């Protein structure tokens, strides 16, 4: 049977990993290539790269970096950030990405999902949704969580899956950064609505948050986090040992 996946997420700006990373064993903690192989060696099941660059030069730099990472790390790579067109899909897939995650680009133009799924297959189209409770309703936010949309999250995610998205990353704005655990209620609602893999994001503060996640919402396929891994608060090897101890299947 397949295992639950643990996925570190790296934000890359102008070719460098941002959000202070704190590993004594690395000579250059902001080098995406070095960090990617570090995570791969300590048991990460997959890596997500978000390109938060705005400039065209930054984009080129990101593409170069992605090629370098994909040439040295042989686990699945997902790329997101600034994906607005099929040409963007093409650019990152040709540079070694296995999956491409869309967020604001799909909100602006939902047909992007259908078109990308037709061209590259559903397995490489990931819908990433930033969701926050507004008056008791799960609302989708765009532009990195800054802008509220009219979209109701469960309906939106279902629609994206119907159009061909093969995986969902659910980032709860309500729990993001709070470090008190994943948004189990929101995840449960999404898992009940779709039959494609769901990746939980936002809220991991300690190893037990991952245990709770997989125990309480068993249909969740993966847990994604950034700072707890980058700051060394949770070592992936320890996390996997802890999950295994709690009878959760992991790759060790």
């Amino acid at each position, binding site marked *: 049977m397949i295992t639950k996946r643990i996925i570190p997420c790296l934000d890359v700006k102008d070719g460098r990993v941002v959000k202070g990373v704190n590993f004594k064993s690395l000579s250059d903690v902001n080098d995406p290539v070095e960090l990617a192989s570090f995570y791969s060696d300590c048991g990460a099941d997959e890596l997500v790269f978000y390109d938060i660059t705005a400039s065209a030069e930054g984009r080129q730099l990101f593409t170069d970096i992605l090629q370098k990472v994909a040439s040295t790390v042989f686990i699945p790579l997902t790329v997101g950030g600034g994906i607005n067109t099929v040409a963007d899909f093409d650019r990152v897939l040709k540079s070694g990405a296995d999956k491409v995650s869309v967020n604001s680009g799909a909100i602006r133009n939902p047909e992007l999902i259908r078109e990308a799924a037709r061209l590259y297959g559903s397995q490489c189209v990931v819908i990433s949704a930033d969701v926050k409770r507004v008056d008791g309703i799960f609302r989708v936010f765009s532009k990195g969580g800054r802008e509220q949309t009219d979209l109701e999250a469960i309906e939106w995610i279902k629609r994206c899956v119907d159009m061909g998205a093969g995986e969902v990353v659910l980032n709860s704005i309500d729990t993001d950064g709070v470090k008190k655990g994943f948004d189990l209620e929101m995840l449960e609602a999404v898992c009940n609505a779709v039959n494609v893999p769901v990746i939980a994001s936002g809220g991991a503060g300690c190893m037990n948050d991952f245990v709770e996640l997989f125990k309480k919402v068993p249909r969740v*396929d993966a847990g994604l986090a950034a700072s707890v891994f980058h700051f060394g608060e949770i070592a992936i090897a320890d996390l996997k040992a802890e999950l295994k101890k709690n009878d959760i299947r992991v790759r060790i």
Partner: protein
Amino acid sequence: MIAIVDYGVGNLFSLRSSFKAIGADAVFTSDEKIIKSADKILLPGVGAFEDAAKKLRDTGLSEVVVSQVKEGKPLLGICLGMQLLFERSFEFGCHEGLGLIPGDIVPFEGKIDKSLKIPEIGWNQLTLNKVSPLYKDFTGGEFVYFVHSYYAECDKNYVSAFSEYDVVFPASVEYENVFGCQFHPEKSGKTGLKILENFCKAGETL
């Protein structure tokens, strides 16, 4: 030299990087002459069976691959490239494959618990079923990365390793000089690279 058949299906970046990483002499090609002069052939593939089978036929490469294999050249098919080696696939209808391994490609749908997701995406374990050059020094239990909605149904003597997703299915097959992996060795970390390396080195042991 290993000829990796480029017939316009799927992204070959990772395979290219993998062969570079293990230092193997691999050429991506759609040239009949290169395929004929190669020591081994690798057939990649991602996407829909019908479309890939058609591309392989339209380019004339299916005939080349089949005749080379029948002359005894080792072939490794990966993911859809493995499925194409069988006689038939029931993905959206019934489509003919290369017929190099007796058996069919069938869907998970209807065979596994409804709560399980299709495609199977993620890391799953190998249960070795016979001695295979691909698994030299393997003990079983190794994890490899899968993305698929269909699997092979064939004689268990052709299966080199099984995996389980509610049903037990062939993770890899081996029939005479024909090898196939349902999983993606190029995405399966060090385990996957080892499998590719073993295929490259398999010459002496075949």
